[in-house]
């Protein structure tokens, strides 16, 4: 989880990602930052994120992103 928070802070250093629950609605994540975020996540956690994983509910908060990572690691 700490590694994830570090990556997210790289996307936007001004946000407290432990508290934010609506990353899209509050315009913190957009299509461009997502394009940057995905390769970072894939490399750091050794997972493959496919378009099927690009659901709003997977990217609501640091917690939901972490849950997705854990799931992909288990399935991988």
């Amino acid at each position: 989880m700490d590694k994830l928070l570090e990556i997210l802070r790289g996307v936007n250093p001004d946000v407290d990602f432990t508290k934010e629950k609506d990353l899209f609605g509050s315009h913190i994540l957009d299509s461009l930052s997502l394009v940057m975020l995905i390769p970072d996540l894939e490399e750091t956690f050794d997972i493959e994120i496919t378009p099927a994983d690009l659901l709003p509910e997977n990217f609501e908060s640091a917690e939901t992103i972490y849950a997705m990572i854990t799931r992909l690691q288990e399935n991988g």
Partner: protein
Amino acid sequence: MKNILEYLENAAEMFPEKIAFADEFSTITYRELLLKAQMIGSVLIRKSIGRSPVAVLLGKTPESLAALMGVVYSGCFYTVLDAEMPAARMNAILKDLAPAAVLTDQSHEAQLKQTNFNGPVLFMEDLFSEQPDREALSRVRAKSIDTDPVYVLFTSGSTGVPKGVVVCHRSVIAYTEWVGKTFHLNENTVFGNQTPFYFSMSVLDLFSTLRNAATLYIIPKKLFVFPAKLIDFLRERNVNTLYWVPSALAIVSNWKLFDYTPAPFLQTVLFAGEVMPAKVLNYWAAHLPETLFANLYGPTEVTDICAYYVVNRVFDDAESIPIGNACDNCDVLVVTPDGREAKPGEEGELLVRGSFLAMGYYNNPEKTAESFVQNPLNPYFPEPVYKTGDIVKRNSLGELLYVTRKDFQIKHMGYRIELGEIEACVYASGEIESCAAIYDADADQIILFYQSGTVDSPAISEALRNRLPKYMLPSRLIRLDHMLYNQSGKIDRNRLKLKYESEYKAAVPHKKGAEHN
């Protein structure tokens, strides 16, 4: 036909129970749309503000489109305000437009309060309590003529001050007739709408839907960020027609969405608003071999579009897609700096004449006189043309090719250079999300900003060295985590220039400041 409301009335008569507009949460049938628009129109008529601007500040919903039609029913013309724009910009627009009223709803009240607007405010929640006043509506209609404005849409001027483009019924009708006939739209057409209603491209979606009694689905914005269900959304609603900006089409190709979910149901895919990278088109065309693709070109000042090219051959990843030829009932001229018609292959500025032309800029005679000028090739009678500021040329097939913005054509080391040509080569060099070349005139240097998850500067440099003459190579390549975009989703070159000057350019002592100290 002289009024765009005839489109709505015909559709409501023929297909009253058909869905006209819908989003994720709500739908509106043609019968409901007509009724709501007439109710709103009746309330506005009672305010006796006729033939004045009314600003509409609402979310992107089916009901907001009823509000636009309601404004037109009252004999007024509408301006769609972007609910997400900064308060300062909204203030600038409201000041320039000085609307006779603002039409909003309770969820946007707080935003309106942040501005200095102190005129009448109407809330959507209060407008549907009384039946339409048919007598008043007919009275207003009888007086309307086809050169009355339908709307004023604000575009960001190159100086950063928005300009309101005034477009009348005749222009919208001439344009919408061309769209419908050229792309064979009919009551089976189902649009998947991407562009915002404050952006000129949505004029095609909105009025083509009404003209053809088609159906338009507003695609939720979040599906362009998290696109897992983007194609499913289109399939579930039987969407067959798209008119998107290339960056939206690029989301599909970047994520290779068609590799997971094919979309053979898409019959017509139109695009405009910025240069379409051939690479993106090639991905779409490879996966949709039966689909018609067309590149549309034009500024807000010619309603939306003045020239188009139906894709009929395969393009190399580094090639530019032509902008083709003039639309029906519209004419384009290519004029050289010395004021004559360009020969085939010769570059010149693109001028547009005909009914698609806007009336000018609202409350701005100076800017209007700069861009809407007498046809330089016709000294015999008054004939306005719009100067697009775009440099084009004709290829050997007689198709128009977009070369660059007049402002992007630079002289560097004595050579005339199109920054767009450099960008096209960068796009062809690998998986580039976005790029923009700017020119630092003081230092006589070309600077390239790019965004890419996989390609780095040395790789781009090498690719450019293989494709471009030495004098076209950028002096600096700057990788950005996020490209800068303006409100309509286009690359914001003004902000990139400022960013370059403040963050990257080697600090030069401020001479003025030094003198004063």
